[in-house]
């Protein structure tokens, strides 16, 4: 995406430094490059999925400075100087993140396409509200659409992750 052959891109690119999952990356991007394509193509992090590409489905959700954002509706240049967390940034040295373990154990997914977005939105919810009610979970996830399972096990997974995080004292 950063190299456009045969087209004069003078003035149409900008330098950015984006910290993705803790690692700062400085590069020149086309101004029109969407954050989701920056993550998938420039960074090679394909865990962030392109679903509807019209900001309706939430599959492309990442955290920008800790706040859920639909990365198909944000430009890479807007993320300049910011911290982005993708699904690849959830697991730590100690293994899977509690939200990943919970989605696995509670069967919070079938095809998995919506799962990265679901988990990132849920992570932000739990950071803000460590013990959400079912209604609060459903409300927080209302911008993320799953077309396989329905939401019962997804809600259970978020509750389980909340309980695990509270136990860990995180």
């Amino acid at each position, binding site marked *: 995406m950063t190299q456009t052959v045969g087209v004069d891109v003078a003035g149409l690119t900008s330098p950015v430094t984006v910290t993705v999952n803790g690692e700062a990356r400085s590069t020149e991007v086309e101004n029109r490059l969407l954050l989701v394509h920056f993550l998938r193509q420039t960074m090679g992090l394909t865990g962030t999925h392109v679903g509807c590409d019209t900001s309706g489905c939430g599959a492309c959700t990442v955290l920008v400075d800790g706040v859920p954002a639909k990365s198909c*509706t944000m*430009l890479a240049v*807007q993320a300049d100087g910011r911290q982005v967390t993708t699904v690849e940034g959830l697991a730590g040295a100690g293994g899977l993140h509690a939200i990943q373990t919970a989605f696995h154990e509670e069967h919070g997914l079938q095809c998995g396409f919506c799962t990265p977005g679901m988990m990132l939105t849920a992570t932000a919810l739990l950071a803000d509200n460590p013990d959400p009610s079912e209604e609060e979970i459903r409300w927080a996830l209302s*911008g993320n659409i799953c077309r396989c399972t329905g939401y019962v096990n997804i809600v259970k997974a978020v509750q389980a992750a909340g309980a695990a995080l509270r136990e860990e004292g995180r």
Partner: protein
Amino acid sequence: MYPASFEYQAPASIDEALTILERYGDEAKVLAGGQSLLPLMKLRFASPRALVDLNRIEGLGELFEDNGGLMIGALVRHAQCERAELLRGRYGVLGDAAPQISDPIVRNWGTVAGSLAHADPQGDWGSALMAAGAELQARGPDGTRTIPLDELFQGPFTTSLEPTEIAVWVRVPDPGPNAGGTYLKLERKVGDFATVGVAVQLSFDNGKVGRAGIALTGVGPCNLRATAAEEALAGAELDDDAIRSAADLAAKGADPRSDVRGSADYKRNIVRVFTERGLRKAAEAAGRREEP
């Protein structure tokens, strides 16, 4: 989908942003939350030569009370309004509207002022703020201009803002001590645009209606003020007859079109029902604050 190529500027001040806008004439668009502008650019409904991003300008993310009224900066997000204690109570029409806009992730980034500048006839803020009597403070090359919202909206996605102006603040006047409001929205599913929305804001004076603000979403070429209903209520006792006749007047003032979300008759009837319900809810909200 990719937007067409554009130049990108992220100025650090409004003055700098205005200089850039002047340079581009009518070929630049102002970027705040981007939740409406970027989808339009991806669909190539809009292909500006340049984007002027306001997000690096300090101080525009503030929401505060000033001389009894409210000031909402150009970078105040829907989610911020959803959480703001300030928007409950007397400003309930705003506090009720905020969580009904799109979905939680979009609300994290989309802005109040951007929604007004976008002027979608199905925009929720346009009605809620019009009912509250709000005005837009725009800065341009010749200084600051105050635009009442019913003069801002000219038609679908069309405003009286000049291409060289920036919507910097939304100002909501003091509704007085005995005020309440609500926003009622019918949507097919969570996150959908309004089939119909009705915003109601009432201020009471000695037990009678002082000012009534009623505005309608999704039933006209832009957010509509139900002027006849507002005028009928001003100075009146808010009894059942007054409520019903105001609701009829609001329905008569609507200009809905049949589409996938419902027939024109259906939408007009929803306006009537929601206006009636909204008036009762707003009066109840105002009444709660009168109790010792």
